[in-house]
């Protein structure tokens, strides 16, 4: 192959890594629903792409290995083999091998070769076992084939006509919640009828005019559907008909009919739907009987047909979220995005300059242009940032994998629940988050969650739960990892800290202070260092990593109940909206997202105040005089201003000489020489070329209130 083809190799590696990640994800999902055909299909396709590309781009061993695996999943696809947890376990193990193989194109090293061989052996063994098992089941089941066919998978399709009376909203019913409840039961298509909605001037906003025709496929009975409407029965016309004993969402004809109906707002003609339903039911029975005929010859009848039935129910349940969204996307190198970011930053600076000039010269046209440009730049800024935002979901597979592997290793049963996975964070942030999060998770698994025996004794559910939750909070994203394990004993932590010489023996500490000791370097409560969490990386490293991206870590724990570690991260890294203030001759920027209010105060009030408490707008509030804290020279002006900021839910006031106004600050890192100072997080270039310092208000508050050891 000529030289230019080698350039494609890097591309392939990128793509292969994505493929492997996808493979991993599909395997994890397959573990939860082993009969989901589309997952098997996904696994197969990933393996197939790896095989093809591997062979194409010189990863022969990878190609060979994936070929073998592909064959196995081909067998599953065609029903010759069943998905078992053993099989999934070996496949998952080999995923790591695949990653390593990607690092060595061409001839692979001896060690890797050995690993491939032993892996292949392990896989072969599992496959052999599974095939034997399969034959056994066939033999055992060959008698009761008929019986199985007669029990349907339970999913039926209902038609629901729901016409609430106009006054239904008056008792506080939210009709949309009803639809949500209904959706919980299965898959549904709601078709709102809006024909009777009057023109605007006749519309009474507290009346309901809409009715719904709903198709619902569910394995629940008709009574459960009725239960949903129990509170509105008297205020509405409700009809529920069972139209088919099968899941009509599997019928293409039905789906297309649905979309036609909802597009054209036509009245639902039930007889038409019922005929579609009977057609579909016939076709299913036909397929089933064909399968049975075919199977009778092959003597593998019942298990396959059984599988078929299961598949039906599985896909029905999964259709809502199991199907992967495919949106078109392109791959762009991060360099290009960084470049774009820099350009946008420069543009924001120039725009500030334009703003300044426009405000100096009183030319109306200039002002209009400058305002338009300002609006455009801030939109441009936001959409540029959103390019490099990726959802936290991308991390989840690795976490599930960790929980799966590690909990098996230590013999604990753990359920990982995740929430808010669509919360987006900067890509670089996600990258620097991975290790700390993995570490915290490991801690939870290793130290937090107890063994099943112990949990039973303590009256907890045998399966421990780790809850991963991400959500936006103001200008921050918060990620919480909580477990329902043993929790941390603050006294024990304190004793340990004293023993390690981190704090003096007679020190008084609050509960929170004691817990925070785990973040101090040189601290590890576990007596014996286990392979998992005690690998020399402590919570202090977690803390440092998170702080490096301007985040914060908090820990809260109750003995016997569990531990919660929450990580607070700033949403945007490089451009912020700020409040420009002046102290003596220097201009500072305070992040606007943190400021709450501004109050005028007299310098004398500050001087007279006792214990740094001042009354602002009727509230007593702690304050800090930034003049003092930043060691500003000169004399304080007679009239000063107090900026109230949010510090962890608490309001704290900061005194400054003068508030100049709002600016967009492009954050430029301070040089290495300034690393040791904490109060200033960055610098920004102003419209006139001068420099303003961006204050890290959290650090200021912490510095001013710090308990010094």
């Amino acid at each position, binding site marked *: *192959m*000529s030289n*230019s*083809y080698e350039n*494609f190799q890097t*591309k*392939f590696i990128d*793509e292969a890594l994505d493929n492997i990640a996808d493979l991993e994800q599909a395997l994890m999902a397959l573990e939860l629903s082993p009969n989901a055909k589309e997952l098997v299909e996904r696994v*197969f*396709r990933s393996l*197939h*792409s790896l*095989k*093809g*590309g591997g*062979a*194409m*781009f010189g990863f022969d061993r990878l190609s060979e290995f994936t*070929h073998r695996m592909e064959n196995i999943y081909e067998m599953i696809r065609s029903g010759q083999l069943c998905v078992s947890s053993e099989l999934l376990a070996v496949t998952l193990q080999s995923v790591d091998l695949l990653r390593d193989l990607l690092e060595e194109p061409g001839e692979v090293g001896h060690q890797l070769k050995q690993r491939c061989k032993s892996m292949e052996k392990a896989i072969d063994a599992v496959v052999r076992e599974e095939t034997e098992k399969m034959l056994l089941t066939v033999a055992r089941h060959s008698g009761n084939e008929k019986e199985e066919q007669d029990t349907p998978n339970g999913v039926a399709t209902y038609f629901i006509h729901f016409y609430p009376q106009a006054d239904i909203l008056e008792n506080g019913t939210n009709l949309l919640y009803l639809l949500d409840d209904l959706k919980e039961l299965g898959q549904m298509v709601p078709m709102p009828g809006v024909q009777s909605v009057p023109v605007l001037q006749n519309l009474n906003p507290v009346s309901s005019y809409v009715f719904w025709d709903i198709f619902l496929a569910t394995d629940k009975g008709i009574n459960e559907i009725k239960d949903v409407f129990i509170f509105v029965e008297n205020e509405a016309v409700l009809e529920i008909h069972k139209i088919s004993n099968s899941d009509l969402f599997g019928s293409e004809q039905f789906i297309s009919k649905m979309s036609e109906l909802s597009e054209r707002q036509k009245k639902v003609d039930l007889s038409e739907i019922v005929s579609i339903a009977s057609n579909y039911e016939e076709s299913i029975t036909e397929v089933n009987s064909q399968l049975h005929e075919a199977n009778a010859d092959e003597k593998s009848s019942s298990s396959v047909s059984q599988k078929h039935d299961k598949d039906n129910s599985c896909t029905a349940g999964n259709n809502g979220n199991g199907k992967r969204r*495919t949106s078109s996307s392109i*791959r762009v190198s991060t360099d290009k995005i960084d470049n774009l970011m820099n350009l946008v930053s420069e543009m924001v600076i120039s725009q500030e300059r334009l703003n300044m000039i426009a405000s100096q010269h009183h030319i109306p046209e200039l002002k209009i242009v400058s305002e338009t440009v300002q609006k455009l730049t801030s939109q441009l800024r936001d959409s540029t940032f959103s390019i490099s935002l990726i959802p936290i979901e991308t991390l989840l597979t690795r976490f599930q994998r960790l929980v799966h592997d590690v909990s098996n290793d230590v013999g604990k049963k753990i359920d990982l629940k995740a929430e808010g996975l669509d919360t987006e964070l900067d890509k670089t942030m996600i990258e620097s988050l991975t290790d700390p999060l993995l570490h915290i998770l490991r801690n939870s698994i290793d130290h937090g969650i107890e063994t099943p025996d112990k949990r039973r004794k303590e009256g907890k559910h045998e399966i421990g739960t780790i809850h991963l939750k991400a959500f936006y909070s103001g200008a921050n994203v918060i990620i919480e990892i909580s477990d329902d394990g043993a929790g941390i004993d603050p006294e024990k932590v304190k004793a340990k800290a004293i023993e390690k010489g981190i704090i003096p023996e007679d020190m008084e500490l609050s509960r929170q202070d004691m817990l925070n000791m785990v973040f101090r370097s040189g601290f590890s409560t576990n007596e014996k260092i286990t392979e998992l969490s005690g690998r020399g990386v402590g919570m202090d490293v977690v803390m440092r990593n998170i702080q490096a991206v301007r985040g914060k870590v908090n820990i809260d724990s109750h003995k016997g109940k569990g531990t919660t570690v929450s990580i607070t991260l700033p949403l945007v890294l490089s451009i912020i909206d700020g409040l420009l203030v002046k102290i003596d001759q220097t201009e500072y920027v305070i992040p606007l997202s943190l400021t709450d209010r501004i109050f005028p105060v007299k310098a004398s009030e500050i001087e007279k105040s006792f214990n740094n408490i001042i009354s602002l707008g009727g509230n007593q509030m702690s304050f800090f005089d930034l003049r003092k804290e930043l060691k500003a020279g000169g004399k304080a002006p007679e009239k000063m201003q107090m900026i109230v900021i949010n510090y962890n839910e608490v309001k704290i006031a900061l005194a400054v000489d003068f508030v100049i106004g709002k600016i967009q600050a492009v954050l430029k890192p301070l040089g290495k020489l300034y690393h040791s100072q904490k109060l200033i997080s960055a610098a920004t270039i102003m419209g006139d070329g001068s420099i303003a310092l961006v204050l890290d208000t959290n650090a200021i508050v912490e510095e001013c209130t710090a308990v010094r050891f």
Partner: protein
Amino acid sequence: MAKTVLIVDDSESIREVVNFTLQNEGYDVLVGVDGEDALQYLDGRTIDIIITDLHMPNLDGLGLIRKVREMDGYKHIPILFLTTESQAAKKMEAKQAGATGWIIKPFVPAKLLSAISRVLR
């Protein structure tokens, strides 16, 4: 006039290699990421040959062929499979669906080119 080739493959790197190889030889290249995606190109424009993968999401190679063979303007267009699959049974199935030929991955560029020019002649 340059001949137009439609490449269909779900693997980006494969698409790029084929694209690179063909463009170097002066072909006009259209690219589809799966069968479904490829169908959008079959809107009446002239396409001289389709080269498609077998296993793809949404609509696989066989499905694509069957659909193409039903379309008036494209009933007789040559379609080559480019795949790692080498089983005779699969080949038979592809042939019945209406495939013109078969190129095995990994391919040598020269072979791909000669296969294409043989079909296009």
